[in-house]
C-alpha cells in the first residue's frame, strides 16, 4: 500500500494521492453512498459523522455534519455536485458552516484503476492563495494548540518535582 502523499501543486491548491487495493467502483461508492461514507470519513479519533446527506446529481447538494462524541461539538459543511462521471471523477463545491477560510473550495476526486488497484487523487482548489494559506495556517495553529493541550495534560498528570 503506498503512503498518502500531500502536496501543494499550485498556490491555490492542496492535493492528496493514495492507492487503494480495490476496484474504483468500490472507491467511488465509498465516497458517494451515505451509509458507506459514514464508516470511514470521520476525521480525528472521537468524532463521528451522524449527518451525511448526498443528492448525487449534477446541481444536487450534499451536507455532512461531524460530531465530537465526548463534548458534543459539531462541525458542518456542504456543497453542490458540479460533475459526476462514475466511477472516475467527482467534482463538488465545499463550504464550511463556520468559515475558516474565505469563499468556497472546489474539490475534484479522480480515480484511476490499474490491475484492480485504484489511485485516488483529491485536489482542493481554494478561491485565492489567501484562502489556501488560511487553511494551512489554521492547521498549523490547531496543531500547535493540540501540542499545548497535551503538554497541559502531561503537566497536570505529573506530580510537581520537589
Amino acid at each position, binding site marked *: *500500500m503506498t*503512503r*498518502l*502523499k*500531500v*502536496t*501543494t501543486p*499550485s*498556490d491555490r491548491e*492542496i492535493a*492528496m494521492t*493514495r492507492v*487503494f*487495493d*480495490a*476496484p474504483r467502483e*468500490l*472507491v467511488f*461508492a*465509498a465516497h458517494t453512498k451515505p451509509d*458507506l461514507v459514514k*464508516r*470511514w*470519513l*470521520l*476525521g*480525528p*479519533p472521537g468524532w463521528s459523522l451522524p449527518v451525511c446527506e448526498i443528492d448525487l446529481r449534477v446541481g444536487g447538494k450534499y451536507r455532512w455534519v461531524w460530531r465530537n462524541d465526548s463534548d458534543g461539538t459539531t462541525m458542518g459543511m456542504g456543497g453542490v455536485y458540479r460533475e459526476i462521471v462514475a466511477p472516475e471523477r467527482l467534482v463538488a463545491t465545499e463550504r464550511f458552516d463556520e468559515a475558516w477560510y474565505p469563499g468556497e473550495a472546489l474539490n475534484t476526486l479522480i480515480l484511476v484503476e490499474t490491475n484492480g488497484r485504484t489511485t485516488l487523487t483529491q485536489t482542493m482548489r481554494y478561491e485565492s*492563495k489567501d484562502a489556501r*494559506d488560511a487553511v*494551512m*495556517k489554521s*492547521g*498549523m*495553529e*490547531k*496543531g*500547535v494548540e493540540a501540542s499545548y493541550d497535551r503538554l497541559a495534560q502531561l503537566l497536570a498528570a505529573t506530580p510537581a518535582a520537589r
Partner: protein
Amino acid sequence: MYNRRLDATFAALADSTRRAILTRLAAGEASVAELARPFAMSQPAISKHLKVLERAGLIRRGREAQRRPRRLEPKRLGEATAWLERYRQLWEGNYRRLDALLQELKTKETK
C-alpha cells in the same frame, strides 16, 4: 511572531521558481550563477527570489567571499512541512478505515 514568520514562509513557498530553487539546494549548496543556469532567468531575477527565501529564513548565505553559495535552512522548512504532515496523518486515519471498508465490500462482492 510565530504566525508572521509562517506567513513569510508560506508566501516564499507559493512560487514555483522558489520551490525549484529549494529543491536544487536540497541537493547541496550553490552559487547565484549556478542557481540561475537551469532557469530562463537573469541573475538579478534569481537574486530577487533568493532575497525572498532569505527573508523567510528558508536559506542562508555561505561565508566564502567569492561564491557566496546559498544553503538550505532545513529548520524553517520543517515548520511549514509539519502542517502537511499533520494533515496527512488526519487523512491517513480516514483512508485506513476506507481500506478496511473496501476489503469488506470486496469480500461481499465475491460471495
